[in-house]
């Protein structure tokens, strides 16, 4: 399914120079050795703005090789601006083979989702991270948050969850839900929905996190324990929907709400576009009877 491209002249393979890649690889090795620990690295300027995946793109550039097949998703979809541009960036600068199929990819760069299809040991998941510090909203001082990580003082994380229950009656944090990695470091999983948190636990694939503006890299090695923080009497739980996917009928995937018209009609569809397409190719279908909406339109709502 993958497409092969010709690299452009005048760029080093995958844009970054080799010394920069070595520096990033060293940071990645350290991050893998200390699961959940934020390793500072010399983040470079990339030809896209901060907040669009400069951290993820640098990690991908540092780990990608000629044999890799790259998939890029943004909120689960392969065909949004961010995903298309990053895929094209690596096609041009590295002549990379790219794909939209989760099963065919060896490197998946993601913004805000984990694919529904379980990942394998030979795959790498690269997250784009806007704010790597989970303690930031409770403690603004960087010196203090580093000390809190070093001394494992994570009481304030529960203060935030307490506050949620006191105000809303349940833990109202729905994305970027803090996790404890390998029983040691509290980590921000990047703004993935908490629906995806259980997928991180004991995942066979290597998970790498890159924050370009904050210049931090962290990682979860394969088969590492990842626990979402909670209270004994308010255990962690994920979102539920009353609907199934309107296109493929899936009842176990993360759904996006798509507004159809001005009369308040709406439908729920899988946010993971590849998963939805695969299921439809196998003959599954949901309850949507109207005209098939343009896929691009769906994903903009996502």
């Amino acid at each position, binding site marked *: 399914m993958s497409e092969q491209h010709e690299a452009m002249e005048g760029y080093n393979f995958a844009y970054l120079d080799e010394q920069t890649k070595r520096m990033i690889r060293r940071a990645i090795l350290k991050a893998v050795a200390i699961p959940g620990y934020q390793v500072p690295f010399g983040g470079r300027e990339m030809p896209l703005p901060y907040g669009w995946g400069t951290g993820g793109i640098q990690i991908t550039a540092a780990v990608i090789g000629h044999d890799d097949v790259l998939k890029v998703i943004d909120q689960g979809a392969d065909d949004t601006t961010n995903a298309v541009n990053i895929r094209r960036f690596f096609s041009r600068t590295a002549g990379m083979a790219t794909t939209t199929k989760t099963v065919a990819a060896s490197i998946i760069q993601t913004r805000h989702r984990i694919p529904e299809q379980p990942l394998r040991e030979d795959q790498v998941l690269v997250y784009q991270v806007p704010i790597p510090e989970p303690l930031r909203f409770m403690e603004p001082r960087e010196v203090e948050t580093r000390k809190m990580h070093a001394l494992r003082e994570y009481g304030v994380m529960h*203060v935030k969850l307490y506050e949620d229950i006191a105000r809303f009656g349940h833990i109202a944090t729905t994305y970027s839900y803090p996790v404890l990695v390998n029983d040691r470091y509290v980590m921000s999983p990047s703004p993935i929905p908490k629906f995806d948190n259980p997928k991180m636990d004991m995942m066979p694939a290597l998970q790498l996190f890159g924050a370009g503006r904050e210049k931090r890299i962290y990682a979860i090695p394969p088969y590492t324990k990842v626990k979402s923080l909670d*209270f004994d*009497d308010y255990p962690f739980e994920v979102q539920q929907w009353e609907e199934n996917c309107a296109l493929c009928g899936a009842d176990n995937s993360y759904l996006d709400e798509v507004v159809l018209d001005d009369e308040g009609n709406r439908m729920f569809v899988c946010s993971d576009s590849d998963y939805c397409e695969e299921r439809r190719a196998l003959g599954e279908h949901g309850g949507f009877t109207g005209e098939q909406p343009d896929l691009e339109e769906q994903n903009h709502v996502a």
Partner: protein
Amino acid sequence: MSPELDQSQPLLTVNGLSHYYGSQLGCSNVGFDLYPGEVLGIVGESGSGKSTLLKCLSAVLPPSEGEVIYRDRTGLPHDIYQISESARRMLRRTDWGVVEQNPRDGLRLGVSAGANIGERMMAVGARHYGGIRSEAESWLDKVEIDLGRIDDLPTTFSGGMQQRLQIARNLVTRPRLIFMDEPTGGLDVSVQARLLDLLRGLVAELGLSVIIVTHDLAVARLLSHRLMVMQRGQVVESGLTDQVLDDPQHPYTQLLVSSVLLP
């Protein structure tokens, strides 16, 4: 206070404590013993080294010279600047409490009163929401804050309520030693009187040891058993509170006592 603790052993022993800010003297050669259940007042004018001394004692500011020895619940002595930083911070969260002059420094203003009280419990491992909440309620009750305010932000509280909330937040882990820096500063007299009354009650009920820094001699007389008078970084006089205030020996103490305005 644990029953097995030997009451005749000092809780805190301070020897030859000095601190210099560069060549500037903060406090010099301070030494004293503090026993369980005792309230020690430190008085003196602004710039006399009271707050520097309190910071050195409460493990915030490492002194230039001298040692601070704390006896833990099992009776073992620890030099607080020799133990590991994590043990020191643990001590500050569990065995000790610090009540700041400005409640904004001692409270977490972005979260509710209940979360402020619960924070220390969660920091030492409490993970049951219902348990944390009922404990927070019982402490709000003890410091005379309406239970209906448990989910309100401290920024919506009056100055006196903020100060009482700060006290509740500190006492929730049953500390043995409380440091207070001008706890009644900035409060009007009637609020101040209620706070002092509350503090006196809690100290007696819980058997707390307290080191209280104040420039208000009336507060010192009401709360403290013993008094240390500081001038230019030195302790110039110390003794029982009534004795120091009624029969001051040092010229500076005499000046201080005679300077108090009577209404």
